[in-house]
């Protein structure tokens, strides 16, 4: 085991290096840049035996890794915000092609106004495309999740692309100590990719992606849906296997339970600020509040079973969102409400949009207000999301 103090972006690059990726293609965008700079350097130094394709756009970055994966290689790319939106067509094409590409998305607000700080709008636009979507909450988890992403996506039960989201700056540019298994051990655990026999190679005259009967399109989507469902098991297995094999921690699969089971009040969060939320939960527990937290690690497939189980003993849920679906609710809030199917009331708070800082003290007041509202029976306002903007006189619901 090697311990190094590294940033989230370097952790991604290190995971890519030890994973034995063969083709990398990317276009720089803040705050993802360090990932691609570091990987380019690894390739030039010969530390990573891969081809690095310096494309002219994100659309082409994803197109190039698509070509590489179609030819049988293990491929990786990374982007943020507008870069991800520019990739949008290719995102769906890759998922529908069932190619297990891994992509890091360093989350960043979408403009205008120009803003390089994090929220979750960019990553969540991928929601319905068929990518497995993970959200890391620490630099260690960025490393672990990136490495696990190859194993999960390439598993023959899955064969889907995997996105690893890490918060811009909060994780991408923040250094933390990270434990990394030795390269040789990783290579044993993650052998070279074994693609399905539909590689594009000379002398094999078949085509991939042809027109066909409409029923075939629907059948393929159904098979994809089943693969996504199977990925739940694979994500849990890989998490346990990785923890056991390398003596590292298990995160608990699709969601991380932080005192959630058997608590009355459940906070649901996703991403880096979950650490701040946990701190607030801890403090409130010390003060006697029966509150816990479920951190959504994988947004797709969504941990609805985990939420359902927790709801059996819970009184109410609070989903704190870093992205909102205009005309409805916070996106995580919507997902939590739909997973619970009315089994418990859900309050939805929207905070931290555009990178607005939300610290443990903010979470403390958000969570405390939620518990008090429930206990005083004043939950009628929960039918609409609450915007948390303490710097404004006007705001709230």
């Amino acid at each position: 085991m090697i311990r190094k103090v590294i940033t989230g972006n370097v952790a991604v690059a290190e995971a890519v290096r030890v994973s034995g990726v063969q083709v990398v293609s990317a276009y720089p965008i803040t705050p993802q840049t360090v990932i691609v700079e570091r990987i380019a350097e690894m390739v030039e130094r010969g530390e990573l035996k891969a081809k690095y394709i310096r494309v002219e756009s994100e659309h082409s970055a994803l197109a190039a890794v698509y070509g590489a994966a179609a030819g049988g290689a293990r491929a990786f790319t990374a982007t943020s915000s507008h870069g991800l939106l520019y990739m949008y067509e290719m995102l769906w094409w890759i998922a529908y092609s069932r190619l297990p590409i891994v992509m890091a998305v360093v989350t960043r607000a979408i403009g205008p106004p120009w803003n390089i700080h994090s929220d979750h709008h960019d990553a969540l636009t991928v929601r319905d495309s068929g990518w497995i979507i993970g959200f890391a909450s620490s630099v260690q988890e960025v490393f672990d999740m990136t490495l696990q992403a190859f194993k999960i996506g390439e598993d023959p039960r899955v064969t889907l692309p995997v996105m690893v989201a890490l918060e811009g700056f909060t994780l991408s540019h923040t250094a933390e100590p990270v434990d990394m298994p030795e390269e040789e051990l990783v290579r044993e655990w993650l052998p070279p990719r074994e693609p399905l026999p539909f590689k594009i190679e000379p002398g094999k005259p078949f085509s991939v992606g042809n027109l066909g009967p409409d029923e075939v399109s629907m059948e393929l989507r159904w098979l994809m849906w089943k693969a996504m469902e199977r990925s739940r098991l694979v994500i849990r297995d890989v998490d346990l296997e990785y923890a056991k094999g390398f003596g590292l921690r298990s995160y608990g699969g699709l969601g991380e339970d932080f005192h959630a089971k058997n608590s009355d009040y459940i906070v649901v969060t996703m991403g880096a600020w979950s650490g701040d939320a946990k701190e607030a939960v801890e403090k409130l527990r010390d003060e006697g509040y029966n509150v816990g937290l479920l951190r959504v690690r994988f947004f797709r497939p969504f941990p609805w079973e985990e939420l359902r189980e927790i709801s059996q003993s819970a009184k109410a849920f609070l989903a704190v969102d870093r992205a909102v679906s205009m005309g409805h609710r916070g996106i995580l809030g919507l997902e939590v409400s739909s997973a619970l199917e009315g089994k418990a009331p859900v309050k939805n708070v929207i905070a931290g949009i555009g990178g607005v800082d939300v610290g443990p003290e903010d979470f403390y007041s958000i969570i405390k207000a939620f518990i008090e509202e429930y206990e005083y029976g004043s939950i009628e306002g929960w039918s609409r999301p609450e915007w948390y903007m303490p710097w404004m006189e006007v705001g709230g619901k």
Partner: protein
Amino acid sequence: MSLQRLALSKVKGILPGNPACMGCPHNMGLRVVGSVLGEKAVLVVPAGCTSIIAGNWPKAGIDMPLLHVPFASAAAVASGLKASHDILGVDSITIVWSGDGGAADIGFATLSGAAVRNEDILVIVSDNEAYMNTGVQASGTTMWKARTTTSPIIGKTEERKDIALLMLMHKVPYVATASVGYPTDFAAKLEKAAKIRGFKLIHLHSPCPPGWRFDSEKTVHIAKLAIETGAWILWEYGEGKLTISPPSKPYTDKARRKPIAEYLKLQGRFAHITEEDVKTIEENIEANWRLIRELEKIYSGES
């Protein structure tokens, strides 16, 4: 490569009964590509007529490995595919088979990027001078005055762009123009391109019967008229030299060219143009010849 040798190839490029229109120039071009490079070729095909010609699953219209890709992505997908072949030790000729839209318009940035990187791919632009697959809308390579469904009455108001010259200015090792009316010239250029490592582009002139509104048995006739009137110039750039190809050579002399009206009058898309328009087109053609002749001299070191 002779026509007889082309006919003997095991790989045919296209399969009988594929869904191409009658007289389709893409079918003619694909047949040559398959015959010359089929054994080692893999095709990357962006949205366009060939997305249809490739056939409806479970049937196939083309007997080469083929990857369908989104409209603007082809040269980048080919770059990645070729990279995977290099790394995995697969000997392939990675070919982008694109229309004018996929190469010159929506996919131009992608194409330019791949050229700048000098990717070891061969791009063939089968140019039928409009977006034919969506129903004959004007493209960046549609001729001035040509009627299309988005220039339906007065015709296109802008000049076309020259994709081959644009790619020549990218300083890539090989660029050529070709025509479906001259399969042996096209075949020779494919053979030459396949031997060069780096970025190669062949701009293939592909007259389209429904799009240009001429009878479907006249594709070759129209393609030949384009050469004989000088409207399309066959040239080749490789090893630092630019040369006008043998079929076009005689027409360097303006006096030997057939009148441009002979080419235009067979095409319904030009049915509305005036004598003056014909004169302007003729002048534009001569200007293009001057440019190519000058380039030939410059690259040969004569001027």
